[in-house]
């Protein structure tokens, strides 16, 4: 640091100027690019609008419109004599009735969770008179967001993208100076920077100087600090430039990212690494990757392997099968697991209630040729024995992708090498087997199977169900008395039963299939065994204000007829989205209203009230604005969350409030999520407008709406 001599003084000044001008240039470029983007977006949008109007115009052309009888033709006199007077029949356009105001919203058929907003996105405009009357409103609003309003910051910030471009742009200034000592590109740049101002320093001081320069540049990236002032305050931060530019190299990826297994740069990695993205992003509740509803996903690593199935055809897969080859130990070994497999697969048969994790007795197996002694061998011995194989392994090249794939599959198929080979596709089972031998040290062992006596199971299950039903009744009492319904979050407390410390128990929720607890957990909801329609309190699901779970309720029909709307169970409409056709028109009461197309019967499901799921705090903040607008689409979901249909929602959001409604709302637990169903309170005729009482929905929903909406009712 003692280096800041007279010589280098010229450098920073010159560089500061350069950086400044380059920065400005880049910003401008960015602005232009942004403007172009906006332009192209606008024109493409325009195109869409034109296409739509074309459709309508086409129809209008086909119509014959009776000319209105014109009494007075419209004449235009020109002041100049050379232009003749123009006469044209006066055509009067018919007045078009205006429609109520509608703020734009996005259609949605399922709830969508959004995070709290930390900045105020726009300052609402509600007319001058409101602002005049209540000048403090906006101030308070901004205070809610700690004074942060969207679009405040304009200068002084530099993001990664601009930074990288800036450094690249600065590189050109030192292009004419040659220095080849640098190891990589960035160091080179800093060296060059140094060179252009420094004369002929010693080699080590040279490096030192470069380091300082480097630190300057690093400083640029530090957030919230002005780029130019930073030049005077070197900070020690990791070099962001290096990090950022490395990604741009073709095929180069951040270290935590596994290379594409199908790509040319596939590397041989461990199973966890190969599956890491899939494991972390998959939502076990939505069956989607990076879903819109559940911010936290449990990874399957914590899941207990509930079933170990293994598909080894007892028979060799072909003449070159590894089983044929060593003939002795392997063949015997290979047959062993097959018995397990068959029996376990039976456990997984659909519609059977037996737990997949419970192994059953080795009964009649397909393969008849195997000797049973081998069955005693536990699988974990496999690698040891395989090593004993006398044959020298063939020398085969395993690409990174193949090796990775092998490690992935071995975790699923264990020693079913034939299946693994079939899935890899490019290797024979013998090669796989040999690779397995080589890799044996790192291969995960098949988890030990905890042996439960299967005989006990059925009886226990039955008892379980009876107790559950009793418990539901009990819980129902609690449920009814308290308005507080808490959000469900799958519990995860390994090696601990679901007792009073379990979050599900404390929140008075049942454990769901998504919980990490054992499937025999006492807190689990057992589902119903109805043969009827599940629309009376006879059905434990209906009683517990839950929809039937297609994975639990296997007799009522909730798990059948996926493609038809004809399901015997009437208690699974929300999850299946079996909504009624609704039509939008100006309301008879206020603003827009929603009308039903087909008649419905009492208690029939009409639609789900969908929207953004926001936290209670966020709802408080938003509700302040909505209250001012006298229009709110907030709907309390449970103690933790609120559904807001303002920005995203479905048509039912247009249903108005009434004290004498024809619909009611019910918050139901649907496969682990609370969702709001709108049901018919009485039989509703075709074309009737739908109303529900905003106040009497469960858990005093809509605390922000009731009052204002009531005033709209005459």
């Amino acid at each position, binding site marked *: 640091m003692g280096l800041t001599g007279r010589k280098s003084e010229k450098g920073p000044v010159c560089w500061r100027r350069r950086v400044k001008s380059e920065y400005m240039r880049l910003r401008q470029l960015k602005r232009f690019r942004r403007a172009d983007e906006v332009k192209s977006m606008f024109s493409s949008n325009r195109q869409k609008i034109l296409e739509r109007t074309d459709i309508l115009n086409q129809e209008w052309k086909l119509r014959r419109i009776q000319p209105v009888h014109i009494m007075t033709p419209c004449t235009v006199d020109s002041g100049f004599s050379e232009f003749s007077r123009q006469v044209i029949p006066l055509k009067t356009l018919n007045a078009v009735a205006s429609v109520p105001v509608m703020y734009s919203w996005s259609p949605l058929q399922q709830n969508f969770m959004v995070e709290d907003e930390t900045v105020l996105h726009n300052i609402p405009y509600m007319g001058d008179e409101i602002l005049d009357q209540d000048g403090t409103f906006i101030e308070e609003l901004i205070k809610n967001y700690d004074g942060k309003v969207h679009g405040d910051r304009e200068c002084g910030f530099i993001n*990664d993208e601009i930074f990288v471009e800036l450094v690249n742009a600065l590189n050109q200034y030192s292009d004419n100076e040659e220095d080849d000592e640098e190891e990589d590109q960035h160091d080179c740049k800093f060296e060059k920077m140094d060179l252009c101002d420094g004369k002929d320093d010693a080699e080590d001081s040279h490096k030192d100087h470069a380091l300082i320069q480097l630190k300057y540049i690093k400083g640029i990236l530090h957030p919230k600090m002005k780029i130019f002032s930073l030049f005077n305050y070197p900070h020690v931060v990791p070099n962001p430039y290096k990090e950022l530019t490395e990604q741009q190299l073709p095929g180069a990826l*951040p270290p935590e990212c596994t290379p594409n297994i199908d790509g040319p740069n596939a590397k041989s990695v461990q199973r966890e690494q190969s599956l890491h993205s899939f494991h972390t992003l998959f939502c076990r509740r939505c069956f989607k*990757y990076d879903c819109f509803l559940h911010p936290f996903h449990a990874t399957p690593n914590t899941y207990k392997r509930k079933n170990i199935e293994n598909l080894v055809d007892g028979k060799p897969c072909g003449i070159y099968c590894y089983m044929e080859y060593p003939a002795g130990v392997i063949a015997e070994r290979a047959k062993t697991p097959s018995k397990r497999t068959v029996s376990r697969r039976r456990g997984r048969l659909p519609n059977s209630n037996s737990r997949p994790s419970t192994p059953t007795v080795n009964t009649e197996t397909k393969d008849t040729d195997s000797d049973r002694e081998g069955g005693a061998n536990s699988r974990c011995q496999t690698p040891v024995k395989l090593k004993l194989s006398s044959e020298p392994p063939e020398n085969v090249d395993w690409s990174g992708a193949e090796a990775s794939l092998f490690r992935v599959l071995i975790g699923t198929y264990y020693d079913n090498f034939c*299946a693994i080979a079939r899935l890899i596709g490019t290797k024979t089972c013998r090669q796989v087997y040999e690779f397995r031998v080589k890799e044996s040290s790192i291969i995960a062992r098949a988890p030990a199977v905890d042996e439960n006596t299967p005989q006990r199971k059925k009886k226990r299950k039955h008892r379980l169900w009876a107790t559950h039903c009793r418990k539901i009744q009990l819980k129902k009492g609690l449920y009814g008395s308290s308005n507080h319904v808490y959000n469900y979050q799958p519990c995860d407390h390994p090696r601990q039963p679901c007792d009073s410390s379990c979050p599900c128990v404390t929140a008075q929720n049942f454990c769901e299939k998504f919980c990490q607890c054992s499937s025999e957990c006492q807190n689990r909801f057992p589902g119903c065994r109805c043969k009827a329609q599940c629309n009376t309190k006879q059905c434990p699901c209906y009683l517990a204000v839950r929809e039937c779970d297609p994975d639990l309720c296997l007799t009522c029909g909730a798990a059948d007829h996926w493609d038809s709307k004809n399901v015997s169970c009437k208690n699974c409409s929300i999850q299946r989205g079996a909504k009624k056709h609704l039509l939008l028109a100006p309301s*008879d009461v206020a603003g827009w209203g929603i009308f039903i197309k087909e008649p419905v019967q009492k208690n029939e499901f009409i639609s789900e009230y969908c929207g953004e799921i926001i936290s209670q705090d966020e709802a408080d903040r938003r509700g302040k604005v909505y209250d001012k607008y006298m229009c709110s689409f907030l709907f309390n979901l449970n103690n933790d969350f609120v559904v807001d249909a303002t920005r995203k929602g479905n048509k039912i959001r247009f249903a108005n409030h009434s004290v004498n409604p024809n619909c009611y709302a019910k918050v139901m637990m649907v496969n682990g999520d609370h969702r709001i169903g709108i049901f018919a309170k009485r039989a509703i005729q*075709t074309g009737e407008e739908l109303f529900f009482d905003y106040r009497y929905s469960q858990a005093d929903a809509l605390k922000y709406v009731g009052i204002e909406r009531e005033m709209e009712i005459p």
Partner: protein
Amino acid sequence: AGSHGTFLKGSGDTKYSAQVMNCKANGAVYPSSGVSSIKKPKMEQLQADHELFLQAFEKPTQIYRFLRTRNLIAPILLHRTLNFMSHRNSRTNAKRKTFKVDDLLSNVDGMKGEPGSQSLTSHLQLTFTGFFHKNDKPCQNSENDQNSVSLEVLLVKVCHKKRKDVSCPIKQVPTGKKQVPLNPNFSQTKSGAFPSLLVSSNEFEPSNSHMVKSYSLLFRVSHTGKRDPNGFINYEADENFDVKEELPSRKKRNSSHRGDGETPETFVAQMTVFDKNRRLQLLDGEYEVSMQQIEDCPVSKKRASWETILDGKRLPPFETFSQGPTLQFTLRWTGDPSTAPVAKPLSTRSSDTSTTESRPSTLRNAPVGKEDLVSTSIQTRREQSPCEPIQKLRIFYQFLYNNNTRQQTEARDDLHCPWCTLNCRKLYSLLKHLKLSHSRFIFNYVPHPKGARIDVSINECYDGSYVGNPQDIHSQPGFAFSRNGPVKRTAVTRILVCRPKRTKPSLSEFLESEDGEPEQQRTYVSGHNRLYFHSDSCMPLRPQEMEVDSEDERDPEWLREKTTTQIEEFTDVNEGEKEVMKLWNLHVMKNGFISDNQMSQASMLFVENYGPYIIRRNLCRNFLLHLVNLHDFNLVTTATIDRAMAHMKEMEESLPELEEGRESSDATCNGHAVSSVVSLHGKRSKSGVSD
């Protein structure tokens, strides 16, 4: 009566307003109004009361007046088809019994022989039945001998322009002068006594010197009228007068204007016989020609426009025929000049289907005569039903307003609907008509010794929402009832009447219900009686779009886009993984899988739908990873993995062209991924999501 001038102007031709005046003019003959019972009500009070009356009744009346006119010009329904108006139906089905389709041809053949010789053979015969002018008293009441006017008929020949001519040369050939009865009363005039005129068809032959372009008849009526300068209002006033009673008062009023009335006036009208293409325009028939006073309109109009402005007021169509000077005549092309047709007056004048108000001045005096007219104009009319009121039936309309605290009474002596002047002929029909067609009012029937009393009040629960086909709102007016030709109407199936239980017609159904509660006017058509809109664009829903639910798709476009961009944003997920995740997400969103049970089925369907794409984009191993992932989450079995991959392999083999395309697409896939990393770097990482 002068104080009601505003009302008259405001509501144009409101008929019953004239009765208001009538009633008052007669010195409150029916004093039922609380206000009018006071002998000398203060002017302001009267004015205020009248304001209230107007407030209550003006708007619906105007609406019904408008609808009446519209229905006259372009009828939507025929009243005679209504069950309770069946007596208006003059047709009989007698002919239907003998009708055979086979006879059609012979009928036409039979007709063909006759008219061929008719066209230009001999004579054009005009028989004048009368000249009608409102401002003139009917002839029989006139004291002087001005019961006829002199009519001159000229044949105008417009010739082709020759080179030297500035305009088309016109030749006028006088064909004769006749005395035509002024405002004749048909009951007294014998048919056959009408003046008639013959024009030889030779006149229409091409003449020698000029090529005649067109022929037309010019009627010129000159008469020393006693025209009242402000005749129109005057007309309105005496429209409903019982002439005999009213004559003295009217005379008094008119006498002040009498001074300028004695000048001879000339009215003209022109009708084209042959147009310039020598097409015959005037066929046999009865005509009524609207005449123009010559100093008003020096330029003769070729045809009477259906909207006329008189005294600064715009008259509704055909109104001219009811008051303006008109000439009635019968036109006939005849071969034999001796057989003059039996002239009879035009039925438009007084029959109930007349386009305008009936002429009470004539009818009132001679109800029997009216019956004659009807029966003569339609020969096949069956005998009048006995319930037809031969005796005078007086109907008192009692208008209740201002929360039924005030009332005003008008009376009528006929069974015409006061709003649409429809002759209902029976009290029952009238009441039924009022109730069904004018539901903005509530009508209650109260028997009255002299006839009937009908209490009229405003229907507060009138549902103004549209009960017709809602699609008609969308299609602009003029479309639904186009007169230009056939138009495609929106097809809407609806049962209007399904054999309703018909109670026997009884006047008691119009009595005020006992419970005193005004009968709820319920809409007869339930269902979609409004125009719906698209929820995304607020555009009107077209009828063909009715069946499509815009919400039917579980994955709206923006959500699909959102999920792809969201996955694309990850910095630490490689492009192959991203691609498979995106495909899978779209697949799940589209199909809406909800249970674990569905997953193996979902995987197989995924292979089915996206298999070729996955193979083409070289994503098979990533797909396998995805399947293993599902297996790790306990959602599928290894059997599903095996089946899915086996299916994939089959597909790969059945796509032979893949091999060469693979390399390039492989490159593009990776290249694309790289570029996307550059543009989106630093946005999100999966590690951030997982904790």
